[in-house]
């Protein structure tokens, strides 16, 4: 070989580089564009009020105490519905994941009932339980129950069998195998299910409150829409967004604490 050359670099690109400022800048730009569009009359404030007026409506809701009345009702329904659905789903999912007979009976039932949109059952639940709180809580609980059951038994199925065999090889009692191996092994999958069911719970909460409630974020949004108070309507949507964000943050912290070994 007479001459030497550098080997050209060919490995660039296709790497995700964090650009933290970009997201904030895009967000600020979008809001500024929105504000300007309304102020200059390019968009009618009746159909889309400016971000400033939404903030003003939000502040008024906070100071008048209306916000807490609606949020309090919504949180109450969500907490009850989600807890009941989650406890039931965990119990059924655990039974399907661990016992063959429960799986043979429960799995076809879950598969058949899971795809039904649970909000479609609200009129039936109102007939059974009345227009009060029970029917709304039951709708949320039903919506949460099936995904929790599916997440739980799938997570149990995903626990490596060799860990269970290891426990058996050391003569661990069956209860210890479940408590010390199966349950902690399934926990990441169960917690991932919680994230999904929290969103489902929130969607069903708003839908149920729009159908028959005096108080609650869903009811507030519907009333504001009926009165063409779009600034109040969007303030309600902001409330929902903040609520979803807070629930997501709470679950992330719970996950970090429970799965700190990862």
């Amino acid at each position: 070989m007479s001459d030497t050359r550098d080997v050209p670099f060919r490995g660039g690109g296709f790497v995700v580089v964090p650009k933290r400022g970009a997201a904030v800048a895009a967000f600020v730009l979008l809001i500024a564009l929105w504000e300007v569009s309304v102020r200059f009359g390019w968009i009618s404030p009746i159909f889309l009020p400016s971000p400033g007026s939404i903030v003003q409506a939000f502040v008024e809701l906070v100071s008048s105490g209306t916000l807490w009345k609606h949020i309090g009702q919504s949180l109450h329904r969500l907490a009850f519905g989600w807890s009941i659905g989650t406890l039931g789903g965990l119990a059924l999912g655990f039974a399907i994941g661990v016992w063959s007979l429960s799986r043979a009976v429960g799995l076809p039932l879950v598969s058949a009932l899971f795809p039904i949109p649970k909000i479609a059952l609200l009129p039936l639940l109102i007939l059974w339980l009345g227009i009060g709180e029970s029917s709304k809580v039951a709708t949320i609980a039903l919506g949460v129950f099936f995904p929790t059951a599916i997440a739980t038994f799938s997570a149990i199925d995903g626990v490596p069998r060799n860990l269970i065999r290891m426990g058996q090889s050391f003569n661990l009692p069956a209860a210890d195998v479940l408590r010390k191996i199966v349950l902690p092994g399934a926990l990441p999958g169960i917690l991932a299910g919680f994230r999904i069911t929290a969103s489902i719970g929130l969607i069903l909460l708003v839908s149920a409150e729009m159908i028959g409630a005096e108080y609650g974020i869903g009811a507030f949004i519907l009333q504001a829409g009926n009165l063409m108070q779009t600034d109040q309507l969007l303030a309600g949507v902001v409330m929902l967004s903040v609520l979803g964000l807070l629930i997501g943050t709470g679950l992330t912290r719970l996950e970090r604490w429970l799965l700190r070994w990862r």
Partner: protein
Amino acid sequence: MELVVEGVSHRYGEVVALEGIDLEVREGETLALIGPSGCGKSTLLGIMGGILQATGGRVRVRGEAPVGSLNPQTYIFQDFALLPWRTVEGNVALALEHHRLQGDEMERRIADVLQRTGLSEFRHAFPKQLSGGMRQRVGIARALAVRPAILLMDEPLSALDAQTRELLMEDFLALWLRERITAVYVTHNLQEALRLADRVCVLSRRPGRVREMVSIDMLQAERATPAAQAHLARLHDRLWGLIKAEAQVAEREVVA
């Protein structure tokens, strides 16, 4: 304690994995189980350890377990089988917690096995923080904590790199020489079998049957010496001769 395997057969549905296995594992000896892929070595080990139920025949133990043995037949797993959510100490403790040991017996046992396996400094580490070799040491420490009479090892070094394998093999040898625990050692690796075993049981291709039992008439401590190499090489050729043709067929079977 000795292990006696009498006429053991096993089926997975229509597939006959093992057929008519008769063998004895003598007190204090290390028996290596080798054979082509899919010959049923791990199945046989599972049956010996009572975590698989044979479809035919039986496995019995003869003699008494040593004083303080909490789990006479104890497994060491190929993939370590450690609980990732427990620390090193917690993984060892798992094998002891349900025995309700008196006073600080559990803490003493844990401290003793961690010291013997060189893990004392890592007692609070999680498995993900350890190398493959250290993880397998945790598996060994967990097994030693219950003071086993018979160790059942399912390819314990196969998931490790060559250097770590060599280091752990030396640890195993030291353990054998010090404690003379009866052991059954499943491996694909003929060198491992020749370094560690007193006898090598060669299984045939599926259905697995005992094809030949080869004694290695040399102390383990002498096998690393240059003088032993020619003899071990002859034994290696003999063992390879017994399994080579069937290993080729098995390999094509697995690929197909």
